[in-house]
């Protein structure tokens, strides 16, 4: 069991390490020799507390907590921000007992592949036990960020009642709550500064939550609700914006039309981040009314740096945004089905752009225009309008090559396409040495290089070899074990790897597990990796946040052996369909993760913990 200690805290990604809870290491300052008087001890402790306050990085804090018992104690008392990458790795009770003065918590739940319907929805990641525990112990809590958690209205109500100083709520990819829960937060969190809802699945209870904000001036700085797909009371929203002088970020949902957007913008020219709602007119227009001067409304927003929305865009109105283009650092057109012709007049002005999200409707030609102007581009995401395997995708290797030639500072790319070549990927690896995140999705399974007909091994190999800062990689297309040997050989900093429909044999997975010491998160689907490959990662699983393997060649017995060898690993085998009985050997998903708590008590019927 002693090797657990070093291995489980190595990553620094988890806030609590089992070792510190059990035995001290190294010299114990407070134990000291005879000549140290008690008061000197206290001085040392005070000094320590004050010094540790400056440590913000959780990795540094984890390291500091291992020095000695008193360091452990001091660190636990001074840690204000908690990051829990897997809500099942540690229990709410253990966390709240160790860390007493927490003001900010980040909590993550479901694995990412659950987003793609690969397992039934009621898997777990319930916020309820966490809010209950924190409600008791963390009365001073100010900030909460949840990702992929199941949050109920009752949980939001408890949150709103429990934390009198609560200021920031950020929910990303969460579900289980509705507008009633939002109404609770709006009405009871009197010091609320930030309410950010991003990509959540919000139930429409038809509660007018916008009207629930209290009267009088608010401290709102950020109100992001573009994913809340419910009608809102516009008058209430307008009044809210009017009485929120600190509001800097506002992202509207698609039920706000462009006429309403105008009214909000003239109330809030101080905005820095704007999500424009539908960006098209309502169907009812008062007769005789002139169209508002949208251009001047945008021109008045001199601080605007981030633009998004355009949920049901009427492209005639696009020129209205020209006045702000030159200042934009972030532009999200990923809901706007616009052509190259429509993009080009806009993008031409966007010299400072660092982040761009678009749909592939802009075609390779649109990407050429991006490459020509956006020399400072750091992040590009190209989403498909037609997300089917055999659809037509108007972007290809041509667009990728153009981007690589124009945007040498690129750090992060997500690119969906139907046709790709090794040459374009190799070119990107050489032209964009700063790449940290490379996610290429060739939508047709097992698609080779469309010109040479070869596997995409060399392209991805070049990425891991030439992009020396690479930490996140998602591969696709026709890939042999050779691609994985490259990843194992060169991908020394890779933390997150996503694999689908790739590889020939167990060797593929072995290369990765044996070659990538920093690997934290590994998600694999539909690839021919079996028990022997799984076995080859035994030395490493305690260092990882999780491993996901679905529709591979694993057997239940093979997984069981892992569970037996590594007692601190929770090994879940999951049936893909809630209704079916779990047959003896067959399962759809293996999801395993390190944990201090052992098998969770809230596992649903379709989950078996080995």
């Amino acid at each position, binding site marked *: 069991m002693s090797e657990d200690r070093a291995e489980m805290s190595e990553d620094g990604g988890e806030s609590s390490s089992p070792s510190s809870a059990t035995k001290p290491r190294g010299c114990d300052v407070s134990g000291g020799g005879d000549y140290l008087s008690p008061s000197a001890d206290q001085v040392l402790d005070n000094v320590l507390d004050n010094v540790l306050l400056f440590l913000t990085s959780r990795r540094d804090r984890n390291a500091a907590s291992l020095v000695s018992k008193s360091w452990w104690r001091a660190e636990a008392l001074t840690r204000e921000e908690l990051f829990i990458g897997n809500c099942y790795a540690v229990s709410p009770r253990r966390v709240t007992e160790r860390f007493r003065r927490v003001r900010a918590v980040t909590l993550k739940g479901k694995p990412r592949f659950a987003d793609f319907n690969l397992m039934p929805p009621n898997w777990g990641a319930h916020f309820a036990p966490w809010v209950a525990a924190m409600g008791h112990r963390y009365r001073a809590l100010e900030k909460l960020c949840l990702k992929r958690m199941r949050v109920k209205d009752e949980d939001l109500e408890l949150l709103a009642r429990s934390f009198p100083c609560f200021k920031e709520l950020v929910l990303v990819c969460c579900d289980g709550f509705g507008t009633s829960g939002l109404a609770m937060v709006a009405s009871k969190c009197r010091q609320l500064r930030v309410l950010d809802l991003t990509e959540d699945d919000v139930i429409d209870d038809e509660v007018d939550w916008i009207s629930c904000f209290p009267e009088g001036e608010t401290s709102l700085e950020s109100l992001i609700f573009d994913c809340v797909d419910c009608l809102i009371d516009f008058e209430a929203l307008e009044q809210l914006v009017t009485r929120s002088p600190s509001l800097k970020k506002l992202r509207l949902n698609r039920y706000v039309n462009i006429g309403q957007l105008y009214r909000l913008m003239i109330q809030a020219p101080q905005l820095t981040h704007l999500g424009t709602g539908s960006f098209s007119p309502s169907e009812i227009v008062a007769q005789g009314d002139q169209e508002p001067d949208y251009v001047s409304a945008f021109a008045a927003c001199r601080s605007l740096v981030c633009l998004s929305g355009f*949920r049901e865009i009427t492209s005639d109105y696009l020129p209205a945004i020209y006045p702000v283009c030159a200042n934009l650092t972030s532009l999200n057109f990923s809901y706007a089905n616009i052509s190259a012709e429509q993009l080009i007049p806009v993008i031409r002005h966007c010299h400072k752009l660092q982040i761009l999200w678009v749909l592939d409707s802009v075609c390779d030609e649109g990407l050429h225009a991006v490459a020509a102007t956006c020399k400072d581009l750091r992040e590009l995401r190209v989403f498909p309008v*037609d997300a089917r395997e*055999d659809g037509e995708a108007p972007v290809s290797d041509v667009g990728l090559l153009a981007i690589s030639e124009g945007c040498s500072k690129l750090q992060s790319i997500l690119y969906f396409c139907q046709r790709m070549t090794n040459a374009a990927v190799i070119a990107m690896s050489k032209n964009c040495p700063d790449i940290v995140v490379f996610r290429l999705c060739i939508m047709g*399974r097992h698609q080779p290089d469309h010109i040479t007909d070869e596997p995409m091994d060399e392209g991805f190999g070049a990425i891991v070899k030439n992009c020396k800062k690479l930490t996140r990689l998602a591969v696709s297309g026709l890939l042999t074990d050779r691609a994985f040997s490259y990843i194992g050989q060169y991908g020394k900093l890779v933390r997150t790897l996503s694999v689908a429909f790739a590889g020939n044999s167990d060797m593929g997975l072995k290369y990765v597990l044996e070659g990538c010491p920093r690997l934290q998160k590994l998600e694999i689907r539909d690839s021919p990796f079996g028990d022997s490959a799984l076995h080859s990662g035994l030395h490493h699983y305690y260092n990882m946040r999780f491993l996901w393997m679905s529709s591979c060649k694993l057997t239940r017995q093979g997984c069981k052996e892992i569970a037996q060898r590594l007692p601190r690993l929770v090994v879940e085998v999951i049936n*893909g369909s809630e209704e079916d009985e779990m047959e003896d050997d067959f399962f759809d998903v293996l999801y395993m993760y390190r944990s201090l708590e052992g098998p969770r008590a809230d596992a649903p019927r379709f989950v078996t913990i080995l």
Partner: protein
Amino acid sequence: MEKPMSYESEDHLNLKATELRLGLPGRDESDKQSSPSAKNNKRTSPEMEGVLYAENEEQDCTPPPKAQVVGWPPVRSYRKNCFQPKKIEADASGVYVKVSMDGAPYLRKIDLNVYKSYPELLKALENMFKCTIGVYSERDGYDGSDYAPIYEDKDGDWMLVGDVPWDMFSTSCKRMRIMKGSEAKGLGCL
């Protein structure tokens, strides 16, 4: 999970064995193309996919669309569901047209593509504006009705709705107005 045995249960007549069919022997036609629907959580296993492709190559020149696989490509469903086919914009001289009615404070906007004929359009207008437009006649227009619909065409001229064939109307109409019947009588003189 194989093989309806119905053929083989017929006494000595092993009809299935002598059945002429395309495809690999030993596989039943009925379990090809499984689980394309999004609701079904089951997905084709890698082995089955191989067989599917092999079969397809044997059969005919136009391969059937690949069975859609669950969760692939990895686009979250709210993004997949977002896109309606691109709206045909107003550069085609009037698919979305504004409609005003005398005496009403607000305009409405309608999509002419939704309607296939004049009766459909007129009925919709009657519903929308709670008025009676009546029946068109070539000779008298909408005589006798409380209201008459007119439209502005590509050339900027105001015409009576119903005079030209529907297709010509729907591509040349830029906007519409529902005029009071008393004023409409004047059009007869033009």
